[in-house]
């Protein structure tokens, strides 16, 4: 792939990844390893797993998620992340915008491909 396209894909992933994280936390709280595993299951979403942690740290400092430590049955305590009210409304706002954007791009890109 052209390097410019690589850079674009990496930017798109970067811009949307945080909302994927917020979405994963929408229904349940999760600890870091669990979150990373869920993201990595989708091909192309995560290139290096470790970069999720700075993202989580930033989301926490921005007040979109909060965390607390919980005992684990199989090892040391885990830090669990959950959405805050702010995180929930940020996610909701993104969903609306994302659908609009996705539909608009699809409208052109998919139509051209179909011809």
């Amino acid at each position, binding site marked *: 792939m052209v*390097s410019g396209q690589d850079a674009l894909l990496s930017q798109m992933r970067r811009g949307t990844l945080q909302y994927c994280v917020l979405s994963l936390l929408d229904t349940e709280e999760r600890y870091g*390893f669990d979150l990373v595993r869920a993201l990595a299951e989708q091909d192309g979403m995560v290139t290096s797993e470790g970069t999720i942690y700075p993202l989580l*740290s930033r989301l926490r400092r921005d007040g979109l998620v909060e965390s607390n430590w919980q005992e684990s049955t199989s090892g040391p305590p885990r*830090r669990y992340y959950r959405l805050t009210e702010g995180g929930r409304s940020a996610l909701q706002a993104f969903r609306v915008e994302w659908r609009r954007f996705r539909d608009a791009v699809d409208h052109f890109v998919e139509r051209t491909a179909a011809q």
Partner: protein
Amino acid sequence: MSDSTDKLVDDYLDRLEQELANFPAARRRELVQEISGHIAEARAALDDETEADVRNLLDRIGDPADIAAEAGMGAQAQATPPPPAPVQAPARARGSGWDVVALVMLLIGGLILPVIGWFIGVVLLWISETWSTGEKLLGTLLVPGGLALPLFLLTVGTSANSCGGDVGGPITCTGGNGTGSVAVAVLVIALFVVPIAVVAYLARRRSQVAVPT
């Protein structure tokens, strides 16, 4: 679990720690703690751990430099060169604009709004996060009033230098004789040069300051 795989993990965490050396201690601790927890969870999930398993696992987590770059988001150092205009925190962008206003007001604020204009510059200087306390002191003390001060002195000086005399009496001049006026001239020039130099220095520092996140 063996000594050699433990060493791989320890080396990895050491490198991560080094890459994060410039971050506040609490951030660094949090990230190292989370990633070392991640490694422990991943290793616990392995049935029969081999050195290759651990190497693969660390590869998937990624280069510590990439993790540090992500932590310093908005900063450069990406694995792939990002397009221009990285995302900047709005608060930061706003701060930068006010920084410029601060410098302008420090220099010529006193000319726009006597005294008050310079004070506005000082207030903006001190609430900015761009400069260190030392630099803020420098900006405040050199020179109070900015360019308004030498201009004011010049105006006063010129009018004080006027000569006058009674009709038929001896002509008397006030001020402006010999060494005194040279010293005043040097002082006034210095008062012009110093604030300009200080503001130029602060502007340079501003452009050098890396964007903290």
